[in-house]
């Protein structure tokens, strides 16, 4: 990271952070980290982790949902909200149209209802491939509607964060989404409901300075870049290179800003345990089965 974009000017840190691509729909895929050529299928089957060097690839929303949700349990909410272009920024509407075609999602976040181990939740998953996961009015609106609905229907909220920050093309309107989502989460919390935030690579800027850091529990994926200011901006401010590992998930854990780093193969179980512990409701029949089997439950103590 850091040196790839020689042409970049100041503040171009986000393009840099997003230089690592996702697994494309091709038969083969070359891992950027270790150079190994791998079957795309094998990567998808392995939680989008390189089977050779274990490095994490970015996960598109649909794949993320199937990674944690009970099969067929996801119902999408609030698609096709009307686009706003408050600055009438040249080329912005066309760019949005193009992004929709390329990514197959209607904006940089997908929201909806899921069940995780039978427990209902409202879940939002950000799409790094959609304009760097940046937050404009629609991203803020979809998340706020989801949080408000979760408050009304007494559901826990899970958000998978991944964002370069605010959507520059929407100017001040994008800034206001920070206050809007934070306000909705406060009401959700005051209603006694649980919010679980999962920080994935990269989570930066206005998203870090709003809903990403407001979870009752904050999880992070290994190695994820997480920070308010991008590494390049900081390097410009202090006039020196940042040490290795700065603003990575492990660094945030060490400094007390995340609860736990979670591996993808443990993600689903971790989510279901935390949701259940924090007011999650299991469906009756599953509850009965579990009670019945409780004697045989496996002991699991996680200290890491």
């Amino acid at each position, binding site marked *: 990271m850091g040196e790839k974009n020689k042409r970049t000017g100041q503040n171009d840190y986000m393009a840099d952070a997003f230089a690592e691509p996702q697994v494309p729909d091709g038969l083969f895929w070359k891992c950027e980290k270790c150079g190994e050529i791998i079957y795309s299928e094998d990567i998808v089957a392995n939680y989008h982790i390189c089977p050779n060097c274990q490095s994490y690839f970015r996960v598109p929303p649909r794949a993320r949902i199937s990674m944690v949700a009970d099969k067929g349990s996801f119902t999408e909410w609030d698609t096709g909200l009307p686009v706003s272009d408050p600055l009438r920024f040249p080329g912005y509407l066309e760019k949005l149209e193009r992004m929709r075609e390329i990514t197959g999602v209607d904006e940089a976040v997908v929201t909806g209802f899921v069940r995780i181990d039978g427990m209902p939740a409202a879940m939002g998953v950000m799409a790094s491939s959609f304009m760097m996961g940046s937050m404009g009015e629609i991203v803020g609106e979809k998340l706020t509607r989801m949080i408000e609905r979760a408050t009304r229907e007494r559901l826990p909220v899970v958000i998978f964060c991944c964002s370069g920050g605010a959507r520059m093309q929407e100017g001040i309107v994008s800034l*206001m989404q920070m206050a809007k989502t934070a306000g909705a989460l406060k009401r959700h919390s005051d209603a006694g409901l649980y919010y679980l935030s999962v920080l994935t690579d990269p989570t930066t*800027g206005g998203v870090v300075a709003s809903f990403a*850091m407001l979870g009752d529990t904050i999880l992070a994926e290994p190695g994820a870049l997480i920070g308010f200011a991008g590494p390049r901006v900081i390097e410009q401010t202090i006039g020196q290179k940042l040490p290795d590992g700065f603003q990575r998930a492990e660094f945030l854990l060490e400094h007390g800003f995340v609860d736990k780093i979670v591996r993808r193969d443990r993600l689903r179980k971790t989510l279901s345990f935390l949701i259940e512990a924090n007011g999650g409701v299991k469906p009756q029949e599953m509850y009965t089965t579990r009670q019945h089997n409780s004697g045989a439950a496996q002991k699991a103590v996680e200290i890491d």
Partner: protein
Amino acid sequence: MEDLTAWERVKRARGGERPTSIDYISGIFDRFMELHGDRACRDDGAIVGGIAQIDGIMVTVIGEQKGRTMKQNLKRNFGMPNPEGYRKALRLMKQAEKFGRPIVCFVDTPGAFCGMEAEERGQGEAIARNLYEMSALKVPVLSILIGEGGSGGALALAVANEVWMLENATYSILSPEGFASILWKDGKRADEAAEVMKITAGDLKNLCMVERVFAENIEREESEISLTDEETEAAAQLEEYKSDTEQENTEQERSSVLTRDNMQLLADELRAGILEFLRIYHGKTPTQIVEERYQRFRKF
């Protein structure tokens, strides 16, 4: 209002002579006692906060503070708060809520500080926490943008019931330089970016981002209204005479720039505005105050 380009206003907003939060605090309030520290890390000089009295009413006042000299800026960090600054602000705001004091914030920052220690101490978390807690404060909050309103660092003191702006203050998602650099790969097109970004008081009023805009050059505008015909004629003659001499012209231009020395009329107007705000909100219940603030941001 003066006829300036957006970029000219950006330069005014950043101007070294421009009054700072402390100048407004002393110009507006009858008493002020500064209170320090976030109770966790240190006292951040980029934010001043405390309790003030205005016409017998106690309020909590918080402002982002720039320095004028290099020495002052070492203390004030050029008005760029660290996480402990936002945490101090939140501590004082929660205390205001506990004792039922309305809150007045002065916003003036290029942005939250982008340094290593700021990241280590959770700059993002600190800003997020302010947005979260401010959204539910049971006392009225008024935020006044007096200079630069730099992104999340400004918003962290502006989740208010009303947001007001001075004529040449700005409020933006990032600096015009940064905007031009990211979207056009050319930081030198900042003047052009400033026009496109809608960051001036007039633009933001049209976007319903602010409730009130205050003219900075009150003296001249006031005189246009209150002068008698005779006086107007005399003034016109004087203007004519002035425009004949270049030197006088520069002086006139300079006198239209807001400074500590010519800010008192503006401070008086702000004082009257704040008193009016306090009077209106005095009649509202805490539930109403919280709901109105929530809806103010919900509509964006």
